[in-house]
């Protein structure tokens, strides 16, 4: 479909791995409290908590200025509202769920909720997500935390991911006293300590989530502790900060980049950029409804063309990382989204990105850092 227009996959053309989201995966067996963990972590009811519903595809939460929830079903092919999710889940083949919401501290992070399926296995899609994960939060229910069936999944995960992974012990509120909690924690550090360096207990009761904005409740629930931990891991990551498009401190040394690349002249590069800018601006000015698939496709194609055009100027080894980051991020956004056939979502993301990119370039031009002469 969309990819048919492309002659060469952008990711393979690149010499270094693409820069991308910091992927935080919240995984566990069904009803282990994954949605609740996300909710206490993000301090809002982002994902509705469901009891007894299994077989949902992974849920993805992306940072955005606007709230949206996009559920696609492949059979029958249609889009569902958030409220439909739990009524029709068992009858409808839901193919994807993407939620966008403002995530203040996590501007470049994506959260994924991944469930072990009915056969005690991870679906191909879940495995794909886990393969790209930067941080894993494994959820296990306090009462019988850490079972054989969980071990059989976790022990197959790559060691680098487990190095930073967190074992979130949910529903600590079910344990009737602190003595019990201590005993469970002791057992877990003994039995699960070989897999997890960090074990946190969380009170994810409905009551806690309802009052999660109350600082005391949040701290008491363990949500704050979890967020602090996740945030510190996120900030340690090489992805953090560098995926931002041209930050104010960046002074891209385009001339140096061009010389080292030696393929295009500086003038050629800037000319190409400016022409692209014009085209894009025209596209974006005539921008129709944000979720129009047709529009998304156009933006996508333009961005790929833009990115491809810029590629030869940038030597991945020597050029300023910021260039690569910008293109890499754009391409990854689109590549990823489209390969999962989520055109509607691409419209939002790609539009945001395009606007951001244009803004950055504009301001560079305005600051005199980018000159056309």
């Amino acid at each position, binding site marked *: 479909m969309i990819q048919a227009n492309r002659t060469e996959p952008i990711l393979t053309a690149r010499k270094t791995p693409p820069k991308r989201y910091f992927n935080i995966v919240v995984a566990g*067996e*069904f*009803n*282990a409290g994954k949605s609740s963990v996300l909710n206490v972590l993000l301090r809002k009811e982002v994902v509705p908590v469901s*009891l*007894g*519903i299994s077989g949902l595809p992974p849920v993805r939460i992306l940072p955005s200025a606007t709230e949206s929830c996009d559920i696609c079903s492949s059979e029958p092919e249609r889009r569902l509202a958030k409220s439909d999710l739990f009524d029709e889940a*068992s009858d409808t083949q839901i193919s994807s769920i993407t939620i966008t919401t403002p995530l203040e501290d996590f501007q470049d992070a994506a959260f994924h909720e991944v469930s*072990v399926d*009915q*056969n*005690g*296995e991870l679906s191909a899609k879940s495995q794909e997500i886990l393969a790209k994960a930067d941080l894993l939060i494994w959820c296990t*229910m306090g*009462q*019988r935390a*850490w*079972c*054989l*069936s969980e*071990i*059989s*999944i976790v022990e197959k995960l790559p060691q680098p991911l487990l190095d930073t992974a967190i074992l979130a012990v949910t*529903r600590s509120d*079910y*344990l009737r006293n602190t003595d*019990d909690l201590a*005993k*469970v924690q*002791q*057992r877990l*550090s*003994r*039995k699960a300590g070989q897999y997890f360096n960090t074990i946190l207990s969380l009170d994810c*009761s*409905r009551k806690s989530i309802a009052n999660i904005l109350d600082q005391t409740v949040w701290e008491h629930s363990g949500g704050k502790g979890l967020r602090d931990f996740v945030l510190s891991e996120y900030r340690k990551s090489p992805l953090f900060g560098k995926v931002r498009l041209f930050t104010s401190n960046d002074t891209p040394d385009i001339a140096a980049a061009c010389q080292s690349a030696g393929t295009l002249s500086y003038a050629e590069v800037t000319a190409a950029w400016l022409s692209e800018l014009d085209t894009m601006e025209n596209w974006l000015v005539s921008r129709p409804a944000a979720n129009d698939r047709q529009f998304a496709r156009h933006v996508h194609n333009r961005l790929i063309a833009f990115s491809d055009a810029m590629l030869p100027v940038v030597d991945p080894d020597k050029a300023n990382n910021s260039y690569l980051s910008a293109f890499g991020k754009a391409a990854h956004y689109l590549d990823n989204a489209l390969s999962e056939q989520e055109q509607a979502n691409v419209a939002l993301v790609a539009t945001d990105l395009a606007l951001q990119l244009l803004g950055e370039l504009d301001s560079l031009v305005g600051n005199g850092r980018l000159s056309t002469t």
Partner: protein
Amino acid sequence: MDVIPTVGNQSRVNIESLKKLINSQRQPEFPEVDAMFAKAVDFLDQCHVRISVVGQVKAGKSTLINVLSGTKDLLPTEVNPWTAVITNLHFGHLDKPHGGGVFQLFSEDEWQRMLEGDKEARALAEDFLPGFDSTVLKKQVEEMQEKARKRLGSLYKHLLGKRHHFNKITSEILERYVSAGHQDTDGEIDESANAGRFSGITKAAEVYLEPGPFSIPVTLSDTPGINDPFLVRDEITTNSFRDTDIFVVALSIHQALGVADMALLKMLSRHSGKSTVIFVNRIDEVDNLAVDVPKVLETLEKKLKSEMGGVNYKLIAGSAHWGHIAHYANEKAIMAASGSAEFNAYCAKIGVDSALAPRDRLIAASGLSELRHALSDRIAEGPVKSALAKTASELNSAMGMLEKLLRERLKNEEVVLLDVGDIPSILESEKNRLITHINTLADLADELDSNEDQTRAKLLENGEIVAKSITNTIEATLSCYVDGQSSELAAAFSSGNTAKKWSLDTAALRQRIEEQTLASYQEGRTEMDGLIAKFATVTDGKVSAVLAEIDIENLLENLPHETIFPGFKPTTTLVDIELVNDRGWRFWEKTKMKKDAAIDRVQKLIRQEMLSGVKICCKTASLAIAERTGEALSRIAKVKKAARDLIVDEINTLKKEIETLVQGINKETILQINTKRATRAKARREQVNRLAKAKDELAKNFLTKPSNSADSRAVSGSKARHE
């Protein structure tokens, strides 16, 4: 506390009515047939049902059993997986002791075999349970054995293959043998700890109890949870499936029918002819009861239907926790549990009468009554029904044999013999009759001898068990006390204890040990009295059926040591333990003891202080039981002698009769004999008629009719699955 509702009433009624039928036809005159009847009665008396409560770790199996069977807190429960050994609770088995229990420890051979495991069960577990890996299991078994070796030190060799008897089982004792035990972070079990001390080497735990709420003998097994990373427990449980009639699968509502639950159901469905009840536990922990519980049940039903299509499961939602509160807790706790709006909404949803008292509403919502009904139905339909059918068909052939014998005798008596020429035949027939009778009596005498021998052996064994049991019980209680003191001391150290000595008041310990010794003695004494009474009744029953009654009243009166006064006197009840290091050259530098050293000292001192008390206590009890056993032996010997004397007298009388017959006979005697024969013939005819009626009744009520498809739904379901 409230009376726990009964299970299995209908089964009891059915069994009793067949027993009544058999007893109405007992014929001590024909030992072969009577033995068959006796066997049938025994078989019915021993007809029991084996119910296994299985499920994932922390599904609440032990709590469920504690509520279902009225044992309150007998089975130890904990927040971490706790049950490590299958614990069989035997309720009201006539062929087993009526109280106490036995723990069988692994022998060297069995332990070796455990490494290899049951191939079939292991293959099944590997097929179904994700993560079950025989190589890992093997490694864990080795580690477990190594740990036990280390923990038990020199005791280890001595313990293997032993049986530990207790006349009274308490929670403390069970904890010692069947609980996993607390482990510190290194996975080392505290050496002197009570909990889990022997669980690593305990192969089986048998606990004998009064019938309690069960109307027929039931063995209720608590099993270690499956899906435990410690595969040894998974294996223990999966190995036990074949010895069970009815499975109760306990699930936690939070993660019901997950992959491990489905694996368990699939493994169970391989065992045909067994029924399964699913109890979805822990609903008390659901936030929005009225909405979520029905919703989950619906999802579960759908899932069972789609994945386990053929099997017809009974699915019950409930909360053992509520049941425990309703049956054992105080009014305040009951009100707290049944007071919430969510609870009321749930009761309304499932149709519990709001006019009921809070306790009754709690019971209704707990799902336990429903579970009891489901079990009663399955007991009546499954094992009891097949036991009745089996007995009935054996009985039918026994009755056929009896009829043949009776008719034969009748024919002998009915032949009219009056001719002079018939006199030799009359003599011959009369002589034969008497000889048969003598032989029967001689056999009876032998039987009485062997019965006495058996009872003697049992009485002596019981005496030994009582003595051992008391030693074991005291040791368990003492260990528990030492545990408590050690952890108190550890806590005191952690909170910055600065005292230089540790004082303990052992008065409570002393009282507890005395109570337990007394209880243990009394259980053993009751067991002994039961053995004596049974011997007397059996002897009397056999003799009085053919001869006369024997005086067995007052047999149990004035036996020595009806009770004992265990004098557990430690050297002192108040013990002060100095927590100061011995005066060495570094004395001034560091006077206070380290935590571990202090705990060690406290443990050693407690044991030392108690040693003399323990010895005296054990001695008092074992002397008492020995004396009582001695007296009992002489009394049963007397009873048997009385019975034997009666028999010998009768045999002599019969022999004389034969002599008279041989010596000579006149017409009068012949007439007399003939009148007697006529009377006996009449009696025989009546016997034959009664037997015919009984046979009809048997055929009508108990013999299996052509198959009825509704007989055993669950059973046929699992068979269908099996294909």
